[in-house]
């Protein structure tokens, strides 16, 4: 599943708010829904959510920035999460991370120059007996070598659909 960044659309935001506003503790479900639809949580969403849930804008902003999962700006077409936790470290994650940054030409929280891939660190994907692990969007990969990393990410970057 790709997280295609669409231009901010009030429709997506309003639909997400309408779908969850009556749930108890609705804020996280709303934010997830917006990010699933749009690829990030645009600044325009904050006052709309605040008004719907009777919260201050500061409270909504505080929640968005507290959680690593929520993005405030559009990312690349795909997100690669590389595990940097202990079990993957024990199997060479740090060398893979260094290689990944060089291969993609960006640091953690950055995006490749062609806008295809955002690189994010993650603390554990639960494949701890088979590391180093990573996740491309929601697709898991374990036992990732540098060569495998290159093959997987180059396939994304030459995917003709990325210009759709």
């Amino acid at each position, binding site marked *: 599943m790709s997280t295609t960044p669409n231009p901010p659309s009030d429709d997506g935001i309003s639909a997400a708010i309408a779908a969850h506003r009556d749930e*108890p*503790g*609705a*804020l*996280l*479900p709303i*934010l*997830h829904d917006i990010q699933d639809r749009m690829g990030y949580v645009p600044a325009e969403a904050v006052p709309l959510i605040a008004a719907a*849930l009777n919260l201050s804008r500061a*409270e909504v902003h*505080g*929640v968005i920035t*507290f*959680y*690593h*999962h*929520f993005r405030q700006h559009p990312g690349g077409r795909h997100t690669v*999460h590389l595990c940097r*936790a*202990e*079990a*993957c*470290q*024990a*199997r060479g994650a740090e060398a893979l991370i260094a290689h990944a940054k060089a291969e993609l030409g960006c640091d953690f929280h950055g995006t490749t120059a062609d806008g295809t891939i955002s690189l994010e660190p*993650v*603390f*554990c*994907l*639960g*494949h*701890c*007996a*088979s*590391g180093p*692990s990573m*996740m491309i969007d*929601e*697709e*898991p*990969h*374990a*036992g990732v070598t540098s060569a495998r990393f290159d093959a997987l990410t180059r396939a994304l970057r030459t995917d003709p659909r990325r210009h759709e």
Partner: protein
Amino acid sequence: MTVTLFVPRDSTSLALGAEAVARALMVEAERRGQSIQVVRNGSRGMFWLEPLVEVATPEGRLAFGPVSAADVPGLFDAGFLNGGEHRLGLGPTEEIPYLKSQERLTFARVGRTDPLSLDDYLANDGYRGLRRALNLSGASIVGEVAESGLRGRGGAAFPTGIKWQTVLETRADRKYVVCNADEGDSGTFSDRMVMEGDPFLLIEGMTIAGLAVGAAEGLIYVRSEYPHAARALSQAIAVAEGSGYLGHDILGSGKSFRLAVRKAAGAYICGEETALLESLEGKRGIVRAKPPLPAIHGLFGRPTIVNNVISLASVPVILDRGAGFYRDYGIGRSRGSLAFQLAGNIRRGGLVEKAFGLTLRELLYDFGGGAASGRPIRAVQVGGPLGAYLSEAEFDTPLDYEAFAAIGGMLGHGGIVVFDDTVDMAHQARFAMEFCAIESCGKCTPCRIGSIRGVEVIDRIVAGSDRPAQVPLLRELCDVMQSGSLCAMGGLTPGPVLSALDRFPEDFGPKSALFPAGRGV
């Protein structure tokens, strides 16, 4: 004749190529005119053999692994569907020593069944615990769980029965059962394996918990890094609702229990129960001061059971087989079994469910086969990122909550991360502080700021800058974090730091500089 094959849908198996293997099997069978049925089971938990393909035969299931898509034509050529020999053949699955020498109470079904088939679940002893619970009073259910000796499997090891008793006794208009499925600790995957491989088990455990304390609503807080687990749970909940096992009037008993999955958002601290409750309420995951206990004043201020996945998933077998059956496993005050997870640099990594009491060495060498690199094992971190690093001298410690506490360690959830002799323990100590700095919720200064200062002090020690003053400073800082933090994040981060310093001082620089005359260790 249609032959039944099993290819796991467990996400680690998928990460190792199970999807391509399943597709290749179907394509190749089609090409050869062979009729097959591919069941997508959970994983058996032998990850060095994944993707593990099993073939159902009249004599039981035969295992092949690790299978890649490229191996598939060769397997057909060898006649693997009819007992043909192949280099990937492992014989009868249940006879593989790693599996055969386990005591699978909680994981009895995982890897054997189709996780989303209620029929499969029922045919393999599923929902027997719930059927018995429906005929018991809440107090009797709680009594049974207390009697079993079950303690919180998420790491804290608090007696589950006492927690439930508190919720049962607290009067309120509404109560909740919350499952902590925010399995964020590196080296742990047992929660994930249950959610993906036997989701009805967790649903059954939570339903029994609801009956026990009089709660009609449950929430499962699943980490966003586990999309497969969240999907499997949502699908299983829909099936259970459709079949009368969840929702209004469960199995005609007049009792109700509703269950929903809530997605976390990538904050490690939300594995701490009070931060988790804040998150479920739609707030930042900031730790709450205790008391009041969540059992009295929990989700939305109501009495709430907050239990880990494995704690709740252990309840059905206790209700089904009786408290005594479960209690007869284990040693001392550690009763029943623990789903140990062998992770990191280990030859045979995976899930080992055993009664408490075997030694760490047996797990590392008899099950694990030593380091995957073939080099000596130098350090082992038990109990997650906040657990102590142990050295060879402690490998004969029995796996028991109290025995680990006695050596300054923490058995926790039974996650075990193995490092070979190339590990730099000063680097690991620094990582523990860095992790705390990134993941601290920010409420307590010793945790929020202390962890940043900790990284700096370790950097100075490693750089050899003013070591005689910096080492005591690091110890003092750890002392402040331990005694000045509300929760385990700040309170336990010093564990891996100090254990690395005490047990592997050579990695921090010349010993004489670390321990100046008169200070000792």
